[in-house]
């Protein structure tokens, strides 16, 4: 009896994966290829943004310094995520997961700052 049960547990995923297999293989075949040229264009954009962020840091922007530096960094990060890391072409679930992680990270920062800003 106990043997029978453990066998059932084993056979279930095999059967399940079989029923899904056809569908998954179909999905795996439509891999998107990011062309060489697209990658090189993204690299040029990243290099230009790096020069821009160094150039801007020479000026005294007072309160805006941090905002400008982090905005440029975020544009660069989005380019890397979308093209180099293929997020734009992969399953949408990955994008949702990245967004959720970002929300967790940002709330970590925002709530800690609430604490520090309203002390005293």
């Amino acid at each position: 009896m106990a043997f029978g049960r453990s066998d059932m547990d084993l056979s279930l995923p095999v059967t399940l994966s079989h029923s899904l297999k056809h569908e998954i293989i179909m999905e795996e075949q439509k891999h998107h290829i990011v062309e060489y040229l697209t990658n090189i264009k993204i690299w040029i954009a990243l290099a230009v943004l790096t020069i821009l962020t160094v150039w801007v840091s020479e000026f005294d922007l007072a309160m805006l310094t941090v905002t400008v530096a982090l905005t440029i960094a975020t544009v660069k990060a989005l380019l890397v995520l979308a093209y180099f890391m293929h997020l734009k072409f992969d399953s949408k679930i990955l994008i949702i997961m990245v967004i959720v992680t970002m929300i967790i990270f940002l709330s970590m920062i925002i709530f800690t700052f609430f604490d520090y800003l309203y002390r005293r």
Partner: protein
Amino acid sequence: MSTNSQNTVEHHPAVHRDDTAKKLGMWLFLFTELILFGGLFLVYAIYRYLNPEDFSNGSHHLDVGIGALNTMILITSSLTVALSITAMQKNKPKLAIGLILFTIFCALLFMINKYFEWGHKIHYDLYPGTELFKALSPGEGLFYVLYYFMTGLHMLHVVVGAILLGIMANYIRKGMITHDNYVLLENGGLYWHLVDLIWIYLFPLLYLIH
């Protein structure tokens, strides 16, 4: 019961592959890495808020030139990893291996730069524990501790990423990564891009915001 389940297996001898799940697993790991560095970014942000002038003084002493050069090196290495995946998809394994080896070369360049950057500071006794370091204001001390820890932890990731990419190049050579099964290379590439991604934020935070 047991013969039944064996039959199920025998009927479908083809090994099932799930590239989406493999990638999803890699991304889950990358999220833990993001939160690891995220914690350090939070510590940096809070202490910068509490010691604005000391942090500004500290970042003035870092070499923007070396930081910018390392940014360019990492961006270029990220490009060559992305290109190696394209090459693999187009069934050009030799080109893919060449591009990965170039990426590892970039990683070495990055480490050599870091060696000179850290070496210069250590030469002037600017590291925790020295008399010079004790004479710094507490805020500046914090800045340098965070500088050493964050760039050091990032450096460790550069080393691990370079080793991973070396393994991937060897897999391509052995035919274990092919033009229709390259998810391992994609995952190795994702790790390398994460290293680039973290540096994209470390560079302005440590070197540029005065």
